[in-house]
């Protein structure tokens, strides 16, 4: 189980994939397996959660790296991109954002447990004023106190994603819409797998290689 603590400031990424005609669970499990067996052993890996939409079409990944430099370093390793090339071949990338601008609202941390349900909402485009307003609104929402919300925005603040364990009540959702407009995407997801960073004793070399097949 992955737990993201509000006190941690990592380089975080949100990746939303449109998987049709594949099943989202298939992509999530494939990416989770590649991460468990290969990616998590790279220096700088701090955790990842893999979610599939309840409708079966969208896969959502939330990944944490120590910092941008650590991610840039591993991206130069051919092993790192092997599974990504396969995923990208099969799906359409709906949204990708990596930044240090993430926050856990309402609780000290948020955990991703297999089978747990999350609601995801993507707001784009945003202005600096609407982003700041939305952030304050989310912090003050009553539901956030009990469920917790993960807030992640792009470095330039042009868009943001909310991941919450419960739905906002109608007035809170309306207030958010008044500030930021309707979400460009929203959906219910379930956690397929989450993979925390390994201890040094758990590290091992990647046991397999991956490549796109010619046919």
């Amino acid at each position, binding site marked *: 189980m992955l737990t993201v603590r509000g006190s941690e400031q990592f380089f975080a990424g949100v990746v939303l994939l449109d998987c049709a*005609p594949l*099943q989202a669970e*298939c992509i999530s*499990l494939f990416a989770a*397996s590649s991460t468990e067996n290969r990616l998590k052993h790279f220096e700088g890996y701090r955790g990842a959660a893999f979610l599939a939409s309840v409708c*079966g079409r969208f896969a959502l990944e939330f990944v944490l790296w120590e910092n941008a430099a650590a991610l840039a370093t591993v991206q130069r390793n051919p092993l790192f991109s092997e599974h990504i090339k396969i995923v990208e071949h099969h799906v359409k990338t709906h949204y990708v954002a990596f930044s240090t601008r993430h926050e856990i609202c309402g609780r000290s941390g948020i955990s991703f447990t297999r089978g747990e349900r999350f609601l995801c909402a993507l707001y784009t485009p945003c202005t600096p004023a609407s982003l700041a307003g939305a952030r304050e609104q989310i912090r003050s929402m009553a539901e956030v106190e009990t469920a917790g919300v993960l807030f992640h925005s792009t470095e330039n603040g042009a868009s943001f994603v909310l991941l919450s364990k419960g739905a906002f009540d109608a007035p809170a959702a309306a207030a958010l819409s008044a500030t930021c407009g309707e979400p460009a995407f929203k959906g219910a997801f379930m956690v397929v797998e989450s993979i925390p960073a390994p201890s040094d004793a758990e590290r091992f070399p990647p*046991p*397999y290689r991956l490549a796109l097949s010619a046919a």
Partner: protein
Amino acid sequence: MFEDFTRVSVEDSFHTLLILIHTKPIHGRGLLLLNASETESRIKYLDGFVGLSFFVNHSHDTIVEFVQWQTAVHLEAAFRRPQFNEHLPVVESLATAEVGFYAVERVITAKDDRMDMGPAFAGMADFQVFTVPTDHIDALIDRMVHWAETAKASAKSIQAVVVLADRAHGKAAFFIHHDPAPSDSIWYADPEAIEIDRASQMTRYTSVSAPGSAGTSMRYVMSSSSPANAHHP
């Protein structure tokens, strides 16, 4: 999530395999995810695949796979396909595996002679395998069924007991399924049979069933980082 469901019954007498995978704890989660991913993304699309349920113990050093194919011929054909066999050298490089070919002899439940492994049945399972001379297998199965019926009636945690047999090799196996809540293992002992495998307190990780009309296989090539070995079904 997934088509997270397989059905086990005597009537649907599929070609059933029980695979025990033993590995180091640090590789257990990786192998579990690898096998589940391979099944979900490629193997389930092969002709004749019925279902596969994955179980893992608490320390992640033992994985049990309950595998169903329509016939042995389907499995043999699948075995020759890269979508099926590419991941096997990876597994072999990190683990040892024991494979047994069984038939479902009895499914002992509260309702009828079948059980569904899926989201509604996400509990723990105990697993045992016994061996006797082949001409004693029917008597062993009778004793196991009698014991299972008694155990099912007396132990509230037991939801179902599946009795399987490999008659040709004089082997019989138990899958004892418990409630989702943690409970003590319940073991069968038989002075006339030799217990050859035991895996306790397994948690069902997921089940993968044959696809419906929706969905399509992923296309990629996997190669082990270790030298390849020969494989036979």
